[in-house]
């Protein structure tokens, strides 16, 4: 179990580095799809099947296909994606992101991780009721207002995308 997690973790880091270093944006997109699949596998190991499914369906499926569509639609001539003019900027960026990593990592490697009080859904309950049934029940009872609002947000995004991307006839 643990060794499978490490394999998927290494693969997802590898995919992330691919997004960072590959020259061709289409290769970046495909490498990001690989990362999303590996994260989906890790979600399955964490007993979050619903998240794993929407990770693959929505992220790796819908959103990345949208990215690839736009990439193929906009065939840009400028392939040089790095700012070569100012190498100090690269070093500063590297130091900043390293600092962010060290800062986050030091939060939970310094001492014993305190997770706070346990909630009402231990692993046995989740496996008995089923994670999807549990999420559906919560979504339509406790979180119904947020659910309705997020539906409105999605509608606004759809209309906004059509309005912004529509070709103007001038």
């Amino acid at each position, binding site marked *: 179990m643990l060794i499978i997690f490490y394999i998927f973790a290494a693969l997802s*880091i590898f995919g992330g580095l691919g997004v960072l270093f590959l020259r061709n944006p289409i290769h970046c997109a495909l490498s990001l799809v690989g990362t999303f699949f590996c994260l989906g596998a890790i979600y399955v190991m964490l007993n979050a099947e619903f998240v794993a499914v929407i990770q693959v369906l929505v992220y790796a499926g819908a959103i990345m296909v949208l990215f690839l569509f736009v990439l193929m639609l906009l065939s840009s001539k400028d392939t040089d994606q790095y700012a070569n003019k100012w190498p100090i900027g690269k070093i500063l960026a590297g130091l900043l992101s390293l600092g962010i990593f060290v800062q986050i990592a030091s939060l939970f490697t310094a001492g014993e991780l305190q997770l706070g009080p346990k909630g009402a859904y231990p692993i046995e309950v989740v496996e008995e009721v089923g994670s999807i049934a549990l999420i559906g029940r919560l979504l339509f009872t406790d979180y119904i207002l947020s659910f309705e609002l997020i539906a409105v947000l999605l509608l606004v995004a759809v209309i906004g995308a059509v309005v912004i991307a529509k070709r103007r006839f001038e």
Partner: protein
Amino acid sequence: MIPVEHILLLSAALFSIGVLGVMLRRNVIVIFMSIELMLNAVNLSFVTFSRGMDSMTGVIFIFFIIVVAAAEAVVGLSIILSIFRTRKTLNIDEFNILKW
């Protein structure tokens, strides 16, 4: 059972890679992909904490984060599409005036 700290380290590493991508890359769409990578790193830590604390709130939160990410990608890509029509480039350094 996977140790919580290891998953959080993976999440922190993915987030840092995303930050680096936003700062180093100059292609707008690749910058967008790095933002998606950061959102995914945060999702991973939400699931981890949710499992570690026997709570479902993190998983519900991810549902909303994914919807917001989809909306953000759709609107962002349509903005890129309409900028590309006038500037004919994807290099973010060229997008330097608000109105043209």
